[in-house]
């Protein structure tokens, strides 16, 4: 770039060529996509710069890596071979039976392949999201200009596939100015588009958590409780990840669930300390209701916390101190749901009839 002051008048070519910055990406062209750039300049990534730890044992990890793919290929190969033998045997006995079996087998292969493909895509999307998060986090701490808009556009594009965010996006477009640097731009994006999504996400978490709490409070079987928790939480994670534009399917969700639990154990520990006071207070309340209801509330809080962790993982821009979602609100609605259930259960029908009479009056 030139370092000398220059002036272009109306008659100059440069003046005519000048593009207004309102159309973005003007800067991006020369430097290339910030995403690819960041993957090339690995040292710039904060994670790799900060991480201090054991050196990976390369040979061992390579051998270890080989285990699962080879095992699965072997199983697939063996199963395919067996299936082939099985179908040919059936054809020899009766061609109709064989054809049906063959058809079913091919359906299994096709649907399985499709599921695998979707899982792979979801995984890739999750990886991409992680990279976006790293880039945005870096831009938030840098004093750069003109790099964020491209990443943000990409993120919006991802989200738009699943959620209608036109009004939120218009709000963002209205609020941003050409002079905003990356830090400000990301803040505005976080305050408009993502804030809208956060609200919806909290609704989803509240809904699932309080529903699960109610179900566990009512269900008579411990085994059923576990199944319920698994079902509701997986449903919730699916919906949340869809909302933030990186939907996770069965396979990917497994990875995601693993991460969520890991984060809950690690990052959650500090939150636990902060929440402990409130929770103790809560316990005395729950104890008075009943053991089962307390279990329900416990499960509800657990699912809510899982939901919040999922939000942390999926949100392209990390939460700030002031917009961080808090467990308090969700817990309140869980209490209300379970407490309402217990009340109606304990007072029984007489109460209900009273209500209707009062309403009639």
């Amino acid at each position, binding site marked *: 770039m030139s*370092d000398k*002051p*220059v*002036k272009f008048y109306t008659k100059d070519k440069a003046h005519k*060529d000048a593009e207004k910055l309102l159309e973005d990406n003007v800067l991006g062209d020369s430097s290339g996509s910030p995403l690819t750039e960041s993957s090339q300049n690995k040292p710039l990534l904060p994670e790799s710069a900060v991480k201090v730890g054991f050196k990976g044992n390369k040979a061992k990890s390579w051998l270890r890596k080989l285990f699962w793919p080879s095992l699965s290929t072997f199983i697939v190969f063996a199963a395919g071979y067996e299936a082939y033998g099985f179908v040919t045997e059936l054809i020899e006995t009766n061609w109709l039976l064989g054809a049906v079996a063959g058809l079913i087998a091919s359906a299994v292969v096709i649907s399985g392949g499709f599921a695998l493909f979707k899982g792979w895509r979801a995984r890739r999307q999750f990886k991409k999201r992680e990279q976006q998060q790293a880039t945005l986090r870096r831009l938030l701490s840098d*004093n750069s200009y*003109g790099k964020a808009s491209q990443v943000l556009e990409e993120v919006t594009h991802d989200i738009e596939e699943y959620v209608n965010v036109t009004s939120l996006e218009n709000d963002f477009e209205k609020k941003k100015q050409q*002079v905003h640097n990356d830090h*400000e731009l990301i803040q*505005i994006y976080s305050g408009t588009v993502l804030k809208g999504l956060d609200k919806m996400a909290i609704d989803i978490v509240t809904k699932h958590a309080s529903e699960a709490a109610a179900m566990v409070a009512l269900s008579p079987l411990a085994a059923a409780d576990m199944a319920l928790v698994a079902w509701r939480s997986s449903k919730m994670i699916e919906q949340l990840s869809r909302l933030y534009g990186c939907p996770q399917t069965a396979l990917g969700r497994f990875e995601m669930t693993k991460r969520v639990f890991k984060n809950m154990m690690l990052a959650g520990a500090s939150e636990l300390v902060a929440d402990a006071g409130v929770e103790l207070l809560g316990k005395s309340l729950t104890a008075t209701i009943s053991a089962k209801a307390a279990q329900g509330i416990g499960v509800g809080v657990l699912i809510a916390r899982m939901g919040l962790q999922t939000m942390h993982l999926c949100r392209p821009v990390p939460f700030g101190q002031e917009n961080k979602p808090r467990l308090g609100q969700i817990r309140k609605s869980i209490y209300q749901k379970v407490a309402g259930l217990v009340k109606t259960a304990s007072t029984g029908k007489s109460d209900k009839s009273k209500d209707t009479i009062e309403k009639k009056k």
Partner: protein
Amino acid sequence: MDLIDKVKTKSNELIDRGLNRNVRIAVTGLSGAGKTAFTTSMINQLLQAPIEEHLTFFSVNAQSRMQACKLTQHQELHIPSFDYSGALTHLISDSPQWPESTRNVSQAQIKCRFRVGHRWIKKLQSDSTVTVEIVDYPGEWLLDLPLLAMDYKSWSKACIKYLNSERRKQYTEGIQNKIRAFDYKSLQDETALAKELKGVANEYRASLSSYRNDYNDYGLALPGRFILPGALADAPTLDFFPVLNEDLLSLDWEQFEQNSSLKVLEKRFNYYKEKVIKPFFEEYFTKVDRQIVLIDTCSVLESGYESYQDLKDTVERLLEGFSYGRSNWLKRLFSPSIDKLMIATTKVDLVPPDQHSAMESFMQKMVAQAKNNVGYEGVEVETMAISAVATSEPVATEHEGEKLLCVKGIEEHSGESVIHYPGRVPSKGLSRQEWNDLDIDFAPFAIPELSEDEALPHIRMDKVIEFLIGDKFI
């Protein structure tokens, strides 16, 4: 019912008093830094905020909690009102001009009605009012502040250093010789002495004023009222000048007689300090909660190493006054209670947006020591690159085969649309050699056509407002 209402109003009053929803902002800056434009823009943004909701980083506005704002009459009736409508008319007229520079202290008061956001306070009162007072005053007078910490002797010593700098020498040589030849021991008739002093003082003032016209920089040799006397024009208290004889300065002045010309000069200096500067700052600093210091980094960059050093020195001295330690003289005098200080570099609309951060960090380096001192006292300090009234828009163009970010505006003298690249703004302090090599040129643009119904175009005014008063809107 009556009782309930009474309790309600009482509790509202209590809350307002407890939360202290009054903010008094002092707009500080040397002349030419854009204080009047800043004050005008700030009032304008606040008045337009409830209607347009355009202040993205002003959280109460972004949350749509702002209901209405209006200009009101302030309590301190002896301070003139800030002429907001006049300043705005200047900006939006057919041949727009910058508002006239401030010639006296003035104050504006805005009341902002908003919905309470805090979830506990919300239960007690649904909406409330924040009163924002903005005080504007001539930047020239600010130069007086450091004088308060000096006596006549140390002021003279500081002046010798200042007057003998390379650039100023040619302007001040004549008067310096004259002052050196002045007979300090003479015992004259009062009226004759007064006349003589006035003659020399006038010459002293004139020589520095002509220097200042050429270079527009700031120093301690020229007390503020010398440049802008206000009501003090021709008053004898302004007829003094520094002692420039080194040997005289090393003497003990006790031996001089009370009515010797030296003692008369000292008396005038002290009178100026006690009766002019002190009352002004006393009134000015009491009850100020927040302060913004505006620095015109653009013109510093343009005018080179010497004015950089001058400004750095002056800013350090100014902020020294604002660091409110226990042993601080300003604290002892006025006990100010400033808890937030913003140091902003103005006129960044002349700089392409990708260089704003460089501009900010250059300014940061300049005030680093002073900022550190203030921060140590527990005052929240922030720096920012802002433009109160933006006169340009950023564009990208091609130059020598490369993309170049520029600013586009209207050239001041020709009225022609022009795209300007000011050169590379340094992001750190420069050595003398680097200063000489620095090739930079910020051409000021003319004010574009502005509409009365829309908020003035600005850069980061919303962030400034959030920092200064955002925490009061809870």
